[in-house]
């Protein structure tokens, strides 16, 4: 079928033209501090190219792990979907327990040509540090997709349960007319974790559409921030955006914060933003328990219901895994 899926170091040898053409085209080395650091030192990562008209028949999946102590990891991912092609890619990540912090500064670039679709899903489970907040990964990642072609579509789905600190805003530049960007996110923070995550939807072309669904769950002393930009450019006629940001608080020492940035430069735009923050319902917990479900099962059930709109965007087997991961990361949050 001509699908290329290999490590970056191999891609440089076998497909230097593609690498030269696209590397740094969406996230240039001048983008931000961590992108510059990554661009300077990165040694490997994953590379995907789907040729014209090819629908990738299976999920492509990679798994990243940080093993070494006192280290940083700087991988890169580059995915190109040529005209009329489609691909679904999933990455998972874990790291063993360490008392010292480690840095993860990755860069992910996606390019979708005319009528191409890229679905990019992440289950991020880097080591979050211990109960006192000692150790854990600093996860400072730059992820951006370019909907270059007309009617192209990029969907980001992320389940963020790990890392001590996460700064991550997977975005879409909706350049092609009629292109679509989507962002579905579940972020949990327990103990002393901090997650500052969201998306950037930059509408450039006409009739572009974006959807943002963000679910933040805070427990323990965790702090959860949604930070999102919706920018409608001067020429983006009839652009549409719908954003929904819901926060769920478990306990009374955690926090949820929402910072939506809206920059609208075209009067034909339709932009909607809905947000809610609520404490996990004591009455819901009691109802579940009265039916015989133990406290932790009750919480897991309510939380997974809260996240349903995001989980259903994940490939089937990963939705099940994400749910289990969520219950592990919230363990001991109430009691």
């Amino acid at each position, binding site marked *: 079928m001509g699908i290329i899926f290999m490590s970056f170091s191999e891609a440089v040898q076998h497909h230097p033209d593609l690498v030269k053409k696209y590397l740094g085209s969406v996230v240039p080395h001048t983008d931000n501090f961590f992108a510059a650091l990554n661009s300077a030192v990165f040694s490997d990562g994953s590379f995907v190219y789907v040729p014209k008209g090819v629908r990738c028949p299976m999920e492509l999946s990679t798994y990243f792990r940080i093993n070494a102590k006192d280290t940083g990891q700087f991988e890169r991912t580059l995915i190109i979907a040529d005209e009329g092609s489609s691909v679904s890619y999933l990455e998972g990540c874990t790291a063993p327990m360490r008392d010292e912090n480690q840095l993860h500064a990755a860069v992910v670039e996606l390019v979708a040509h005319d009528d191409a679709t890229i679905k990019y899903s992440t289950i991020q489970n880097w080591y979050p540090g211990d109960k006192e907040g000692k150790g854990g990964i600093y996860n400072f990642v730059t992820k951006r997709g370019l909907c270059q072609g007309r009617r192209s579509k990029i969907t980001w789905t992320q389940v963020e349960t790990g890392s001590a600190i996460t700064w991550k805003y997977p975005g879409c530049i909706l350049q092609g007319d009629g292109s679509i960007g989507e962002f579905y996110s579940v972020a949990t923070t327990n103990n002393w974790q901090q997650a500052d995550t969201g998306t950037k939807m930059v509408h450039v072309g006409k009739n572009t559409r974006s959807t943002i669904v963000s679910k933040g769950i805070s427990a323990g002393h965790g702090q959860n921030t949604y930070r999102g930009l919706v920018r409608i450019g001067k020429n983006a006629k009839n652009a549409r955006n719908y954003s929904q940001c819901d926060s769920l608080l478990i306990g009374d020492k955690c926090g949820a914060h929402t910072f939506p940035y809206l920059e609208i430069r075209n009067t034909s735009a339709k932009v909607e933003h809905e947000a809610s923050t609520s404490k996990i319902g004591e009455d819901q917990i009691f109802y579940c328990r009265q039916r015989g479900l133990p406290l932790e*099962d009750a919480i897991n059930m309510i939380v997974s219901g809260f996240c349903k709109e995001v989980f259903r965007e994940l490939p089937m087997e990963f939705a099940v895994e994400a749910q289990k991961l969520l219950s592990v990361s919230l363990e001991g949050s109430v009691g």
Partner: protein
Amino acid sequence: MLDIRNLQVRADDKDILKGIDLHVNAGEVHAIMGPNGSGKSTLARALSGHPEYAVTGGEVTFEGKDLLAMDPDERAREGVFMAFQYPVEIAGVNNANFLKAALNAKRKHNGQPELDAYEFISLVKEKSKLLEIDDSMLKRAVNEGFSGGEKKRNEIFQLALLEPRLAILDETDSGLDIDALKLVSAGVNAMRSPDRAFIVVTHYQRLLAYIVPDYVHVLSGGKIVKSGGKELALELEAKGYGWIDAA
């Protein structure tokens, strides 16, 4: 089966139950009646372990075990079921999945094998007919977007699935029209059996015309002020609660 001795309960910084004594045997249906604010629902919620109702005195034994020492979910798995006055909505949680989790939690507790999806569906089919629970009610999120009548039917449906030893109905008749009331009552009556007991909390006699109790107790000011047979409910209906307070 259930032995309540001198039960005292506090909620919202107020003493609500001020010494309740009640003995319930297997196979019996006890109605708890009384004016608004008399503590009827407090009794139901305290027995099921609601965290906002603090027991300040007294004892409750269920099947010889100390009920008050158990967590709410432990009480449920031991066989205490409460049909809620206001059933709670849980967004995003499929009703059928919720019921299956509840049933399997109980089966596990009783040392029975958990039901798989196929066995569960056959059981649901069998139990759903009487209460006219259709597929759409099972596929929707727990109680979300249910009408008042649907919510109450869903409660009794759960009662039928979970087969508790003791079922407490907390104002199950409130907000029901006559057709829904008949349906719900038929569901409850089908569950009456020599080894199951019911405590039916209600403000009105009309429910007791369909679910006929063996005993009627009248609560007032946090105490049981009068007990009798089913004819006591009719007397209350005719004379009002003022008659009890004056007596």
